[in-house]
C-alpha cells in the first residue's frame, strides 16, 4: 500500500488540493496501484501548496506545488516510489523554511490525519492530558504560570493568572471558552490548528477544564471558516468516541464536554466580552470590565477565555514542563509564537519561532521579501488594529514590550507586508472605515469617532485645511484611545497614527495627483 499525503487545509484547497487528490485516486486506479490518500493539515509553506508527500522507505518525499495537470507526469516519473520529478522537494523537513523554525505547537500539523485519535496519539498526543489527570488543579495551573505563557489572542495577558483566577473561584458551574474568531487580516494560525491538528486544541481545553473545575467548553469559530468548523466537529466526535472527551474521561471521575458555536461575520465578536454575548445568543455587544469574565463570564459564571494558540500551547507545557517552554523567548515574552507571513510576500506561511526573532529575519530570511519583487515600504504587525511600521524598523525584535514601546503591538503574530506602491493615507482611511463597519455601537468614541475619522482623512487627502484637520484627527485618535470601551475603538488609532508618523508624505500629496489616480 502506497501512502500519499494531500492536505485538506482550506489554504491548500484554495489552490486545488481536492482536484489533485481526486486525480491521484483516478490515476492510481487506472494503473491498478494500491494507493491510500491521507488528507492532512498544511505544513505552512503555502507557496508550495498543494504540497503532496509520499511515504518511502527513507521517509516522506514531497512534491509541490502540484496541480491537477501534473498528476499524470508524477505517476509516469514514479513519484509514488519517491522518484525525481521537476516538482521534487525532497524531505520537506530539511527545507530551510521548516528546519530553521522552533516548532513546539505546530509539531504535528501537516503530518497526521487531523481527525484520527490513533494518529494523534502516535505522535505524542494525549500524553499531557494523561499526565494532567493525575495532577491536582493547582499543579497544572502552577505549571502554566511557570511557563510564562501569555495570551496569544493579542493582549498578551499572563495565562497563569487567568487560570488561577478561575481555579480559585468556589466550585460550581464554570466554563472554558476558546476564542477562535480569528478575524485579523494577516492571521491564519488558528485556522491551521483547527484544520490540521484540532485534537491538540481539544486536549488543551480539556486540561484547562479539569484544572479550573469547568466541565463545559465552547469553541467560538467565525463563519468565514467553514472547513475549520467541520474539522473541529469531526475531531470532537472522534475524541468523544475514544473517551478523551465527555463523562468520566478515561475512567476517571473527570468530565468535560465541548461544543462548537459559529460566529456570523462580526469582527467585534473576537473581543472576549462581545464573544460571550454572542455565545449567549445575543447581539455581540461589548461588556464593560470589570467584572472580568474570569469571575463573571458566560451566563454570569466564572469563565476561562483563551485564544486557540494559547490552548494549543498547553499540551507541550504539561508534557515537557513549564520550565522547558520558558527556555524559549526574550524578556517577558516566553515561549514561541506562530508568526504568520502575509500580504505582499514571496513565501507566505507559518513560521513558529521563539520571541525575539526580528521582523527582518521573518520577512527576508523566511519570507524571501515581497511577492512583487519591489522594495518593502510598510509592514502592518498584529492585525488591522496594529501599527504600520516602516522598512527602517525591520530590525525590531518580535517581543511584546519592545513593540509596545514603539507604539506598536505583536498582537496575534500576523505580519502583512506592503511594497512601495502602497498609499498610506488610503490604509489609514481603511482602518477608520473598518472600525465604522465593525463597531458594535455601544460606546460613542468608537461608533461616531470612526465615521468622523473617515471624513477627516478624506478632507486631508482632498487638501482641505490640512494642518487643522491633521490636528483634529490627532485629537480624535486620542479620544478614541482613551474613551473607547474595548480594543476595537481603542486601538483603531494605532494604524492611523503610525501611518501619519512614519509616512507623513502620503498625507501631504498635491491634490491634483490624488485626483489623477
Amino acid at each position, binding site marked *: 500500500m502506497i501512502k500519499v499525503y494531500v492536505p485538506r487545509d*482550506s*489554504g491548500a*484547497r*484554495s*489552490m486545488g488540493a481536492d482536484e489533485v487528490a481526486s486525480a491521484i485516486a483516478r490515476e492510481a486506479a487506472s494503473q491498478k496501484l494500491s494507493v491510500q490518500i491521507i488528507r492532512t493539515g498544511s505544513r505552512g509553506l*503555502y*507557496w508550495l*501548496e498543494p504540497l503532496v508527500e509520499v511515504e518511502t522507505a527513507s521517509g516522506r518525499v514531497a512534491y509541490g506545488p502540484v496541480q491537477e495537470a501534473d498528476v499524470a507526469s508524477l505517476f509516469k516519473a514514479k513519484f509514488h516510489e519517491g522518484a525525481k520529478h521537476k516538482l521534487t522537494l525532497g524531505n520537506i523537513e530539511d527545507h530551510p523554511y521548516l528546519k530553521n523554525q522552533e516548532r513546539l505547537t505546530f509539531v504535528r500539523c501537516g503530518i497526521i490525519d487531523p481527525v484520527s485519535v490513533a494518529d494523534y496519539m502516535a505522535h505524542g498526543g494525549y500524553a499531557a492530558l494523561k499526565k494532567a489527570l493525575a495532577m491536582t488543579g493547582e499543579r497544572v495551573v502552577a505549571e502554566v504560570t511557570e511557563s510564562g505563557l501569555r495570551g496569544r489572542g493579542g493582549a498578551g495577558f499572563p495565562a497563569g493568572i487567568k487560570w488561577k483566577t478561575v481555579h480559585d473561584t468556589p466550585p460550581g458551574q464554570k466554563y472554558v471558552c476558546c476564542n477562535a474568531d*480569528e*478575524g*485579523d*487580516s*494577516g*492571521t*491564519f494560525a*488558528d*485556522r491551521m490548528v483547527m484544520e490540521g491538528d484540532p485534537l491538540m486544541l481539544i486536549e488543551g481545553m480539556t486540561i484547562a477544564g479539569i484544572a479550573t473545575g469547568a466541565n463545559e467548553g465552547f469553541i467560538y469559530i467565525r*463563519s*468565514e*471558516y*467553514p472547513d*475549520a468548523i467541520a474539522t473541529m466537529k469531526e475531531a470532537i466526535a472522534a475524541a468523544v468516541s475514544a473517551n478523551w472527551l465527555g463523562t468520566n474521561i478515561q475512567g476517571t471521575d473527570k468530565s468535560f464536554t465541548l461544543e462548537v*458555536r*459559529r*460566529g*456570523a*461575520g*462580526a*469582527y467585534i465578536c473576537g473581543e472576549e466580552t462581545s464573544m460571550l454575548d*454572542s*455565545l*449567549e*445568543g*445575543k*447581539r*455581540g455587544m461589548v461588556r464593560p470590565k470589570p467584572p472580568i469574565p474570569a469571575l463573571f463570564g458566560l*451566563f454570569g459564571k466564572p469563565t476561562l477565555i483563551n485564544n486557540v494558540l494559547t490552548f494549543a500551547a498547553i499540551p507541550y507545557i504539561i508534557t515537557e514542563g513549564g520550565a522547558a517552554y520558558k527556555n524559549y523567548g526574550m524578556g517577558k515574552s516566553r515561549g514561541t509564537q506562530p508568526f*504568520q*507571513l*502575509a*500580504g*505582499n*510576500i514571496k513565501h*507566505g*506561511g*507559518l513560521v513558529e519561532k521563539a520571541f525575539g526573532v526580528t521582523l527582518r529575519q521573518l520577512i527576508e530570511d523566511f519570507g524571501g521579501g515581497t*511577492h512583487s519583487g519591489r522594495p518593502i515600504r510598510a509592514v*502592518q504587525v498584529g492585525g*488591522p488594529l496594529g501599527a504600520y511600521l516602516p522598512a527602517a524598523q525591520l530590525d525590531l525584535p518580535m517581543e511584546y514590550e519592545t513593540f509596545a514601546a514603539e507604539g506598536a503591538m505583536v498582537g496575534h503574530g*500576523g505580519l*502583512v*507586508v*506592503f*511594497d512601495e506602491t*502602497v498609499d498610506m493615507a488610503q*490604509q489609514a482611511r*481603511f482602518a477608520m472605515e*473598518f472600525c465604522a*463597519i*465593525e463597531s458594535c455601537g455601544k460606546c460613542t468614541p468608537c461608533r461616531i469617532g470612526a465615521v468622523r475619522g473617515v471624513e477627516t482623512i478624506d478632507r486631508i487627502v482632498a487638501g482641505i485645511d490640512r494642518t487643522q484637520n491633521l490636528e483634529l484627527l490627532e485629537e480624535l485618535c486620542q479620544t478614541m484611545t482613551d474613551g473607547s470601551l474595548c480594543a476595537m475603538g481603542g486601538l483603531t488609532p494605532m494604524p492611523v497614527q503610525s501611518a501619519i508618523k512614519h509616512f507623513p508624505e502620503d498625507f501631504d500629496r498635491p491634490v491634483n495627483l490624488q485626483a489623477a489616480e
Partner: protein
Amino acid sequence: MAGKRTLINTLPQGTEAAQAIAARYGNRPDALLEMLHDIQHELGAIPDAALPVLAKALNLSRAEVYGTMSFYHEFRRTPAGRHVVKVCRAESCQAMGARALVAEAQKTLQVRFGETTSDGAITLEAVYCLGNCHLSPNIQVDGKTIGRVNAEKFGKLAAELRA
C-alpha cells in the same frame, strides 16, 4: 441579462422549519445563532415569519430575536443568487491588489456589494479576511476559498458560475 428578479417572492414562510430547528437545539436561547444559520442554510434566507416563531420557542421577545439577526453581517432576509461570491477587502489582500480586484468584480458582474446579478446567478459580497492571507488576494465561492485571484481568474470563475 434581461428579466426581473423574481427571487424575493420565492422565500418560503419557514415557520415550520424554524420550529423544527429550534427544537433540534432544545429551544435553548443561547443557540439562537446556530438556529439562524440552520434556517438560512435550509431556506436560503431568514424569513420574517420565522422570527416570532423563534421568539416564542426560545421565550424571548421578537425584538431580541430581530436584534440578534440584524447585528450579524452573515444573516440575510432575502435569498441570495444561486452562488455567493465574497471578495476579501482586508489589508493582506489590499497589499496584493484587492482594490483592483473589487473594481474588476463589480465591473464584470455589473453589481455592487450586496447585490445580485440580473440573471440571479451571483450575489457579490464583501468579506474581511478568509484566513488565507498567505495566498492573497482571496475570494470565497459558496464557502470554498480560492487563492491568488486575479482579474483573469475571476472572469473565468464568474463565467463558469453563470453558465
